[in-house]
């Protein structure tokens, strides 16, 4: 198995940490993993993305240009990465921010109303966890509980009190896509 995923959005939307949880969860599951960020010039408000590869053999190139899954958090990222989904792959996007939805027909496309869920949770910061939940419900690359375990490793102690909220968000994400089949 090798799963090549890219997660893209604005800086500050948590795309890098969503990727990190996916990767770290892979470590917990004894997979081979790599996480590769790409930054724009802005400190805040720019675009950001990361490529995550989970596999059972050493990762050859940590940078690839075609992906099994693309998860996007804004319109420019959708436009940039829709063509990069491998035929038969998955394109998942946050519903609210996308004005012009994707048009490809050879891939699975799932819109996730994650922002709305985050509003319900009264915390925009957990948007990425909602998306992660939704993503892991569709692509069983790692077990969702390992994403939460990963949180314990990634977050500094003093933030551990926030983990339950994150877990909730993750589960909401899973819930949001329950009508879709895992691929």
């Amino acid at each position, binding site marked *: 198995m090798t799963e090549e995923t890219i997660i893209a959005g604005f800086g500050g939307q948590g795309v890098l940490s969503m990727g990190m949880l996916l990767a770290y969860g892979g470590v917990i599951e004894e997979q081979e993993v790599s996480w590769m960020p790409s930054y724009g010039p*802005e*400190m805040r408000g720019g675009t950001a993305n990361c490529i995550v590869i989970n596999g059972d053999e050493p990762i050859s190139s940590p940078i690839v240009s075609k992906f099994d899954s693309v998860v996007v958090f804004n319109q420019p990222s959708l436009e940039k990465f829709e063509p990069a989904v491998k035929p038969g792959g998955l394109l998942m996007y946050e519903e609210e921010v996308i004005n012009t939805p994707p048009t490809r027909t050879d891939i699975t496309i799932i819109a996730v109303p994650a922002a709305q869920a985050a509003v319900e949770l009264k915390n925009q910061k957990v948007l990425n966890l909602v998306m992660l939940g939704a993503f892991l419900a569709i692509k069983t690359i790692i077990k969702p509980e390992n994403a939460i375990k990963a949180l314990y490793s990634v977050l500094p102690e003093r933030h551990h009190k926030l983990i339950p909220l994150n877990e909730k968000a993750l589960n909401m994400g899973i819930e949001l896509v329950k009508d879709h089949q895992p691929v």
Partner: protein
Amino acid sequence: MTDECTITEGMSAMDLVYDRPESLLDVRMHYCPGCGHSTVHKLLMEVVDEMEINSEIIGVAPVGCSVLAYEYMNIDMHQAAHGRATALATGIKRVLPDKYVFTYQGDGDLAAIGTAETIHSANRGENFLIIFINNGIYGMTGGQMAPTTPEGGKTATSPYGRDIGDMGAPIDIAAMIAPLPGTFYITRQTVHNAKGVRKTKKALTNALKYQQLNKGLCFVEIVTNCPSNWKLTPYEANQWMVDNMFDNYPLGDIKVPAKEDLS
């Protein structure tokens, strides 16, 4: 501007009393919300417009958050290597003595890696303007300690707070170059409130006018903020600045030309 932007209704018999300066290009600046860099860019372009010198001025952009200053200012600009803006400006001004020349530099750029160039430009009395944006941190690279970081300041490279004994005290470059005969006008301002903005604009205007006199270096330091790396909202950041920066960098004129020097 192409944005839809009218919030209140239009009224008749109204004077336009403030508008974005023309020389500030109509593009979105990459600076973080509330960052003083943007304010100073705007001010500088106001001065350039008012003095009608946008065809006679050459700016030198540094390496630092303002590295892209040339994307916003509708004047000829030259992007420098980190710390070397005043060396570039020396080169430019020496071959174009009749043009206005300024550098725009951060504290890492001017007070760390560029120290030798700063001091020797000042000592040679180069006839250009240094605009020194002192935000007490390396903004662009993500919040490392600058030579001007206040005592105790926690940054990415002083995670336990700046320890004066180990890392040195915040350095006051303006004070250091003031005694040099090569410097003509040195002032320290801020742009965190409207009053400060007005005074800074005046300082920039002074400095550029003085440049015509060919009497040496003008140096306008602007103590400002870095909300992103200070990890504060812009408003909080400005408060923090008032509380922590102004003691180290007292505002006001440091060296002003005597009347008889103004001719």
